């Protein structure tokens, strides 16, 4: 084969390979939407994090604004300590509240941020004071059954007449 044709083919090969990588990064991956890495870190303490995992999204009003970077257990307060990285573009007031929510009925769990009204913004290393734990399905069913049982309590008395 002639040398220039060969070079051309190798050039096409390399260009196609790089294009495939670009497609994987932009179209398949999330490189185009949220580019995390340079963000500020905030902490939040939760009584129960349910099934939250590291790298779960942090959303505010349904928009992904960051990711959970680490989950540790606080041995002094016996609570879960969730560290999350929030993108620099999104600044939240200091009295923002964090809650653990589920997308859909059986979907993945994420941290939802609800902005407060404070004029001071959250800084790197701050912690969120107002938190709401994950809703554990078993507890919910337990409460429901307990409530039902309490509701039904007077009935046998009335029925015995």
């Amino acid at each position: 084969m002639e040398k220039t044709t060969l070079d051309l083919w190798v050039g096409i090969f390399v260009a196609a390979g790089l294009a495939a990588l670009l497609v994987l990064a932009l179209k398949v991956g999330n490189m185009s939407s949220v580019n995390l890495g340079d963000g500020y870190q905030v902490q939040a303490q939760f009584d129960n994090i349910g099934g939250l995992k590291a790298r779960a999204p942090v959303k505010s009003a349904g928009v992904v604004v960051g990711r959970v970077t680490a989950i540790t257990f606080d041995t002094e307060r016996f609570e879960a300590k969730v560290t999350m990285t929030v993108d620099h573009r999104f600044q939240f007031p200091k009295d923002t509240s964090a809650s653990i929510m589920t997308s859909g009925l059986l979907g993945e769990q994420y941290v939802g941020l609800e902005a407060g009204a404070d004029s001071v913004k959250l800084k790197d290393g701050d912690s969120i004071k107002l938190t709401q734990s994950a809703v554990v399905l078993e507890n919910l069913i337990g409460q429901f059954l307990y409530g039902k049982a309490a509701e039904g309590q007077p009935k046998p008395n009335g029925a015995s007449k």
Partner: protein
Amino acid sequence: MFNGVLDWLRGIGASVINGVWRLGYASRFFMLTLLGSGTSFRRFQLTINEIYSTGVLSLIIILVSGLFVGMVLGLQGYETLQRYGSAEALGTLVALSLVRELGPVVAALLFASRAGSAITAEIGLMKATEQLSAMEMMAVDPIARVVAPRFWAGVFSMPLLAAMFSAIGVFGGYLVGVVLIGVDNGAFWSQMQAAVDFRHDVLNGVIKSLVFGIAVTAIALFEGYDAPPTAEGVSGATTRTVVTSSLVILALDFVLTAFMFRGV
């Protein structure tokens, strides 16, 4: 009786010594390849020629296999997912399984059987026809002139091939899932993009394919260089290349996956 046991022990000892000797020889060969790779960058045309025969000529098989693997993933994934009413997650399933596992692994297996076997046969025949010795006679280092450019060409081509495999596989999944079956187009892409992380999934896949490229090319080159200079020797070496590199790819994949994706 006693002699039989002795012979048996002797057999074990001999095979262990032989295995360790071969491993040492292979490591020494690998080091020599790395040390002699200056030529393949100074005379880059040598490497480009090898990229043509390892990379460009593997394109067809990689692209066609990738397309069909993606299409099968789309069909089978849809069958399973629609039972749980979550057919929209098809994009996530196709993209994650391709980018993390199937792309690097299947592309490397194809690369081993398409390009690895060719490298072994070529170098084995060069040795059998004493071309390598002739080069040494002319004071040309055969490792720098023949082996190293092939090594770097393989290491360079493998990640590109794996990326193309994954990309066209995702397209195949899209073709079957969205165009043929009718999964919602927006949900297909948006759920995929929400689940696939560039650094965690795509880059780790690239690292995997780079490691596989190094392993496959090194094994193919060593088997060719070490082949007995006979017709049977070359054929045996070619078979060993495909078998060994396939096993090494699968074993390495397990180790790499355990390190990369554990606990997430």
